[in-house]
């Protein structure tokens, strides 16, 4: 079949030792410090008491889940434009991390919902669209897992990622209308300033952790591809 993509062999180089582990240490220490700060400085909530503290992991995780599909979209588009395999691997790394964060958000949300709302799950607009996003990401990862040819995998998953990202706001709107037509959901829109600092600090902490995760996953994928290229070259008798 015809293709406009350049040959992939030789373009992938395994990453050398870098400063990223230092960034990783920084990200995790910052996360621990932010969590401690947020928990110490915020007073117990009037209604929820110390239960409210789960907000400092749940809400930043949800924000990052919104950010990661954007990364998948950007690098998917960039791959289709430039056809560099690195962009595909970055999009895949972002999708994996996004799936993890979406799962984390859902799990933490359920833990929070049980004592406050009395149920594990409710068909609230945000909960439901987060679940749909999780399923869309699962589809993206399934495409990657089921297709072996690297070029086909890259092109198809770029397209699946782009369409999925476009759909996220539409899903959210549709689920919101679906809810509001049936019953008005009360939403805790106002947050006391005492909680805002902790929330912001943890948002940055989660952002650093997410960047670190994506970077490490990307490096691992690069190494896997480099190993594949090397073994193919060896099998063809070309030596190195």
């Amino acid at each position: 079949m015809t293709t406009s993509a350049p040959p992939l062999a030789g373009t992938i180089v395994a990453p050398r030792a870098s400063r990223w582990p230092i960034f990783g240490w920084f990200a995790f220490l910052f996360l621990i410090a932010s969590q401690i700060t947020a928990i110490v400085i915020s007073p117990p909530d009037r209604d929820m008491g110390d239960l409210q503290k789960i907000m400092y992991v749940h809400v930043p995780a949800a924000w990052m889940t919104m950010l990661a599909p954007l990364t998948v979209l950007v690098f998917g588009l960039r791959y289709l434009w430039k056809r560099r395999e690195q962009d595909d691997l970055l999009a895949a790394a972002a999708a994996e991390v996004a799936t993890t964060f979406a799962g984390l958000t859902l799990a933490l949300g359920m833990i929070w919902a049980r004592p406050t709302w009395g149920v594990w799950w409710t068909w609230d607009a945000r909960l439901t669209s987060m679940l749909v996003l999780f399923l869309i990401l699962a589809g993206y990862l399934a495409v990657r897992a089921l297709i072996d040819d690297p070029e086909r995998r890259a092109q198809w998953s770029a397209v699946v990622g782009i369409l999925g990202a476009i759909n996220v706001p539409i899903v959210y709107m549709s689920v919101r209308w679906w809810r509001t037509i049936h019953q008005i959901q009360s939403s805790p829109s106002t947050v006391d300033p005492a909680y805002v600092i902790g929330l912001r600090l943890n948002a940055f902490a989660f952002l650093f952790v997410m960047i670190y995760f994506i970077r490490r996953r990307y490096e691992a994928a690069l190494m896997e591809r480099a190993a594949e290229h090397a073994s193919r070259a060896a099998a063809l008798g070309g030596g190195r």
Partner: protein
Amino acid sequence: MSLQRDWRRARAIAWKDLTAERRSKAGFNAVRSLAITILVLFGFALGPDTNAVRAAAPGVIWLCALFAGVLAFNRSYQSELDGGALEQLVLYPGSRKAIYAGKLLANFVFVALMLAVVIVAGIILFQVVIPGEWPSLLAIILFGTIGLVTLGTFYAAMSSRSRAREVLLPLLLFPMLVPVLLAAMEATKALLGGNMMGDAGVWVRLLIVFDIVFLAATFLAFEAVIEV
């Protein structure tokens, strides 16, 4: 000029698919029978209570269309792959968007015919009272079907050429179709419930936006899918 040629190509592909379908009839009959079977099984699940069954009818009918549609979408490429014809189609001169347009057209006719049967069966089995605004209902069915067929035809181009195609297509398609299903079900429900025209209007607008966005996106992306 070139657009005219592409349109002729698309029509030729759609005509070929539909002729093959019309002469064998096996596919359509099987898919239609499956849809009606699902309808009956939903009837068992929702119980013999007339009011409960009637209230659930819009959702059940759309889910039947979805489940049966998945089979149709994979079939539409499977028949090409069996004879190694898809590569030939791709190698022909002209835009490959024409292949997509042709498949889209054929699948639309297929699913629309199937939906017509399912809706008649659903109205009878679930004792649905046909509302006075039935022309609006036709609009909902039209836009809902376009949304379903657009993404179904597009994702089937990938899933039919991968391992585990029976699983991959629903896995990709169902979460993506959440807005279409919600809008189509709710609009149908609003119309059947009577006097809630305002609600149905909002949902129809959502369907139209979804159709336009994804028709444009899938047409732009199809070359990237079919060329590898």
